[in-house]
């Protein structure tokens, strides 16, 4: 179940403010890193809602994000719509795709769910990869960012764009926290911990699963729009299943089911990637080894592990004071 503890709020604010300061004081390269972190963090939050709270370990979140990015590109480049409606369309497409996958896989669990999402993600990837109309493996260019000049903001500027992605990250977190605290979010946690009991209570688990994956897809759709606006070019690589695997890695490194943890994970992942790449071009081997170590160490992730220790100490403290009370 989701709780917005003070510690979580503090870490969240610390990271968000830190990212803005890093972008404001750093070079162009630092701002690129901030954008990369923000997009990855949004994806990780989206996956955490599905996997950490709903127990649905999806391997198609890369594809969901890519659907949003491609819909944005189709609407704005092919049909000439303005950027804002195109973005809404892209996010809606991601939500619809997520809902559809959730509905079709509603009766599968565990490894079957993982495989099914893998298959649907690859299906979307292959469709786009083979489509001449969408540029195939060459991808699509000619995209635009939002025109926020009426607010006096020029998103073409690297600092403004970095701050804009961090603001989006904050909004996505708020949306996720708000939904998880609602009755629906509580039902979702219930689904995760005891599905039979919820069915006995009369809850339609398939519809809840579909809705949850739809909401998660909506959040991933935001990341898709940002990714498209970041490089102003999209390619089918966005949808490949290893992208989804990397998002899962970020969630695990940060802390599954903590919502703040995935943001911490994204910061560490991107920072580590750029640091390690300075010394070796075998960055993926480092990720693989870190991932294996993280799972073998208990799989709680960095933020999750710290929360676990803190809860442990609180429990120990309570027991001590209880004993003192007895004496």
């Amino acid at each position, binding site marked *: 179940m989701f709780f917005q503890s003070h510690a979580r709020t503090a870490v969240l604010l610390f990271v968000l403010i830190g990212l803005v300061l890093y972008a404001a004081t750093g070079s162009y390269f630092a701002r690129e890193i901030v954008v990369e972190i923000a997009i990855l963090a949004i994806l990780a939050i989206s996956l955490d809602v599905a*996997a950490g709270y709903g127990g649905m*370990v999806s*391997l198609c979140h890369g594809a969901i994000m890519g659907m949003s990015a491609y819909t944005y590109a189709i609407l704005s480049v092919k049909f000439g719509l303005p950027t804002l409606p195109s973005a809404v369309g892209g996010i809606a497409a991601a939500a619809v795709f997520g809902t559809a996958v959730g509905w*079709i*896989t509603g*009766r*599968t669990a*565990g*490894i*079957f769910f*993982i*495989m*099914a999402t*893998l*298959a*649907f993600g*690859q*299906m979307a990837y*292959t*469709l786009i*990869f*083979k489509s001449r109309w969408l540029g195939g493996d060459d991808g699509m260019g000619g995209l635009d960012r939002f025109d926020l000049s009426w607010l006096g903001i020029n998103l073409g500027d690297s600092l403004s764009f970095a701050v804009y992605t961090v603001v989006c990250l904050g909004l996505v977190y708020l949306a996720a926290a708000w939904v998880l605290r609602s009755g629906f979010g509580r039902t979702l946690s219930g689904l995760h911990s005891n599905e039979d009991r919820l069915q006995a209570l009369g809850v339609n688990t398939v519809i809840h699963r579909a809705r949850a994956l739809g909401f998660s897809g909506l959040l991933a759709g935001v990341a898709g729009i940002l990714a498209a606006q970041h490089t102003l070019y999209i390619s089918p690589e966005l949808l490949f*299943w*290893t992208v989804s*695997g990397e998002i*899962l*890695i970020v969630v*695990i490194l940060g802390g599954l089911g903590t919502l703040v943890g995935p943001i911490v994970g994204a910061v560490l992942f991107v920072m580590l990637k750029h640091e390690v790449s300075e010394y070796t071009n*075998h960055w*993926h*081997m480092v*990720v*693989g*080894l*870190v*991932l*294996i170590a993280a*799972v*073998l160490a208990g*799989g709680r992730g960095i933020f999750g592990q710290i929360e676990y220790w803190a809860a442990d100490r609180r429990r120990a403290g309570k027991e001590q004071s209880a004993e003192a009370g007895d004496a």
Partner: protein
Amino acid sequence: MDAGFWILQFLNATQFSMLLFLLSIGLTVIFGLLHFVNLAHGALYMLGAYIGISAAAWTGSFWAALVLAPIAVTLIGAVLYFTLIDRLRSAGPMNQVLVTFGLIFVFIDLVRIGWGDVALGLNAPQVLSGATDLGIVSYPTYRLFLIGLGAMVMAILWIVLSKTQIGAMIRASVENEAMAKALGINVGELFFAVFCVGCALAGLAGVAAAPVLSATTGMGISILIPTLIVVVIGGLGSLEGAIVGSFIVGFIETFSAAILPGLAAILTYVLLAAVLVLRPRGLLPARA
């Protein structure tokens, strides 16, 4: 599109199905028996191809490579079993997916360090090079050899699983592990043996595929998805399921690529979706 065209497509499909079978049988039995999701199975196949190419270069013989590569891959698999897989058996599918996903990254980079980033080829032995005249069409001899190799492995596995005591023990353990243990079957040893056979077959598939497909660092990832589809369509843990699934996927992919190139890419995924919705346990599940 004359008869020759169809015969060629039929042979191509059969050959691809055999390759899928060699990979999926190991994966499905490990799945069914150990409840373990090994995404690194494709990486073992890649290692089989690269080790086979080096073994052929050292010994100068393709046949030596065909024997040595599966042995080497089995040894790697055994190390993995004792370091990671045994302790992850009860850790749940997500952790297994994550760790074996990490292993894919590690193996790919190890291959890049050891063999470099270029595609490597392997020459088929003299006897199997060239083409064989089959009357209406002539077909590469090596590909016919691959079909024969797959059929042989299929026959051996079928005999072992259905006619021998070991096979009965394996089937019993897939069906009901606790009961098999109670009957005195050493399930742990059995699991290890089955895992090793699965690794050996992945290595065999890798070295056998090398003369046809040439070895690249991406080969493990690209074969993994069709293999997983075979396993899910067929039903986890069943030999019949792996055979049927391999032929379904192999034939659909080959024939749709020849007849309906537009649809080819997604037909297998549509099939997988249909199976997951209509028969979530696969077409021929091992457990009744």
